[in-house]
């Protein structure tokens, strides 16, 4: 095992689902060490266990066996309340289907994590506005999701993920519902976030998307098949600029 304390440290993590009489082994011993500030893509076909791994990293689920250390804490034994606090403080989620609350303005969507952190209304509003400005939507804070394009909605979701200053962003197929141009813009935002020191864990099955990460882990049958470092593809300046100013 690595001696240097990684931000995310998984040791021989297994996950077994009981479906009736059958045991489904979703993870069969995954050991992974992700240091702070890394942009890592987890790839794999459906059923490879990448979503399960994502859920465990995201404290949405607990491993059946093995150890998972998040920022030095063994979270595999935490209860639902403690896990909720970790999700609130350390993690930020970006989903394929955006998962914004409908009939709720962008700024209110972004404020959501701060609500559960117990911040005052004025402070929440200020920070949500800043997060939206950071993703280039400072002029659309009162727009509702149904008034926005897919790319804009995903940027609101990213603003929601970063508003509580998390150390890790977990993105589950964030470009799955976006066209290629918008996908590139979103990847540009992730690269910027990484540059500001946030760890980005990206789950995707598209090689085009994983190309923007500096490290690619490929999963198969609940195990890590390969773990490679690469020179990330840079987002063209124009697209990145579009993402932050549009």
């Amino acid at each position, binding site marked *: 095992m690595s001696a240097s304390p990684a931000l995310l440290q998984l040791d021989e993590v297994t996950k077994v689902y009981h479906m009736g009489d059958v045991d489904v082994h979703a993870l069969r011993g995954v050991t992974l060490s992700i240091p702070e500030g890394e942009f890592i893509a987890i790839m794999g076909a459906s059923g490879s266990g990448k979503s399960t791994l994502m859920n465990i990293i995201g404290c*949405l*689920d607990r491993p059946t066996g093995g150890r998972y250390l998040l920022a030095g804490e063994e979270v595999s034994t935490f209860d639902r309340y403690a896990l909720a*606090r970790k999700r609130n403080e350390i993690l930020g*989620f970006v989903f394929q289907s955006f*998962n914004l*609350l409908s009939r709720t303005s962008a700024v209110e969507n972004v404020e959501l994590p701060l609500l*559960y952190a117990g911040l005052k209304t004025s402070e929440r509003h200020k920070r949500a506005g800043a997060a939206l400005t950071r993703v280039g939507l400072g002029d659309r804070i009162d727009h509702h999701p149904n008034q926005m394009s897919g790319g804009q909605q995903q940027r609101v979701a990213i603003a929601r993920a970063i508003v*509580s200053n998390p150390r890790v962003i977990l993105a589950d197929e964030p470009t799955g519902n976006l066209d290629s141009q918008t996908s590139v813009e979103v990847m540009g935002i992730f690269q910027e976030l990484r540059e500001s020191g946030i760890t980005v864990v990206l789950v995707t099955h598209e090689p085009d998307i994983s190309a923007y990460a500096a490290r690619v882990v490929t999963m198969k049958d609940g195990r890590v098949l390969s773990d490679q470092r690469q020179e990330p593809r840079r987002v063209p300046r124009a697209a990145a600029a579009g993402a932050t100013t549009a």
Partner: protein
Amino acid sequence: MNILQTLRVAIHALLRNKLRSFLTTLGIIIGVSAVIAMVAIGEGAKARVEESFASMGSNLLVVLPGSTTTGGQRGGFGSLPTLTWDDLRAIRAEVPTVKYAAAQLRTNAQLVSEEQNWNTGVYGTSPEYFQIRNWPTALGSGMTDSDVESGAKVLFLGQTVVEKLFGANTDPVGQLVRIKNIPFEVKGVLERKGQSPMGQDYDDAVFMPLKAFQTKIQGGMQQYLAGVIYVGADSPATTAKAQQQITNLLRDRHHIKPGADDDFSIRNLTELASAQEQGTRTLTTLLASIAAVSLLVGGIGIMNIMLVSVTERTREIGVRMAVGANPAHILSQFLVEALTLSIAGGVVGVAFGLLGARRLAANFGWPVLIRPDIIVISVVFSGLVGVVFGLYPARKASLLDPIDALRFE
């Protein structure tokens, strides 16, 4: 996350579905307004009954003469004059719990004034009668003992009779009224007394001293008292005792053997009043329980909608959990939503109930009696309904698995 923030989130969620929230609340609104209106009306009816019994005179007993039995055909009470003037004197003198006792003789006669005539009940009685019936004089003077002894031909009119013979708002004191062609002078006018519990107009009556009644109207002196005896007991508490004592006295005086039937009867109007009151109370309880059932139905409506809402917003719950909501946050959010619905329903229901009670009371001519305790109880109870019926859906929401919730389509 404090309660104020939770409340704001709940209100926000409810306003996203305005029509549905309103329809859900409707059950509670109807239930609470029914409770408020029913109780207010019930109280009004009760107060009215009390009022009309109070107007009959308090601590009142009426002694009626017995019935005749001729050839198996039994007449009603009063068909045989069994009471004597000596009986009246004995009741006055020998029963310690009796404060006043007065004879009331009655007939119907045509009254003729200068301009009008009117047929009404003519009563012969003595001054105590007005004490027993708690009936003060409005104009002129009241009946005195000397009026009775001298056989003065004076009249004391009820308000209705004044209106019929002399017109409304007139002062007939000193005027002459003829009965059977005998002129009587109006000496006093009695205050308005209103209706009896059975709807009889107390003010449609004229009173004259006993002696004048016996000599001029009924004709001839009789040994028997051809009417009834009104008795006023010391207090409401002694009314029943007075009734017993009078019964014993009269049985003794009439030489009725033990086991034989009384040849007179005594009506205790206090008992009648409490029976009436009991009746209205039963009615109020019945109406209030029906209203409470509708509140319960309203609560089930809330539970139903909250369950639908939890299913519909499963993804929202998943998102909230993903960004850091713990089970208690989710539980309190849905519970506060249910509570907001039910309490809002309660408050609106109170408003409608008060409005409805006022309108109904105006229709029936009843006093509106709003009991503040009922308002508080209604709102608290509807809140309770919200908690009880909101708990299950809220708990269901809080127990959702975040992964399943996020994947829910």
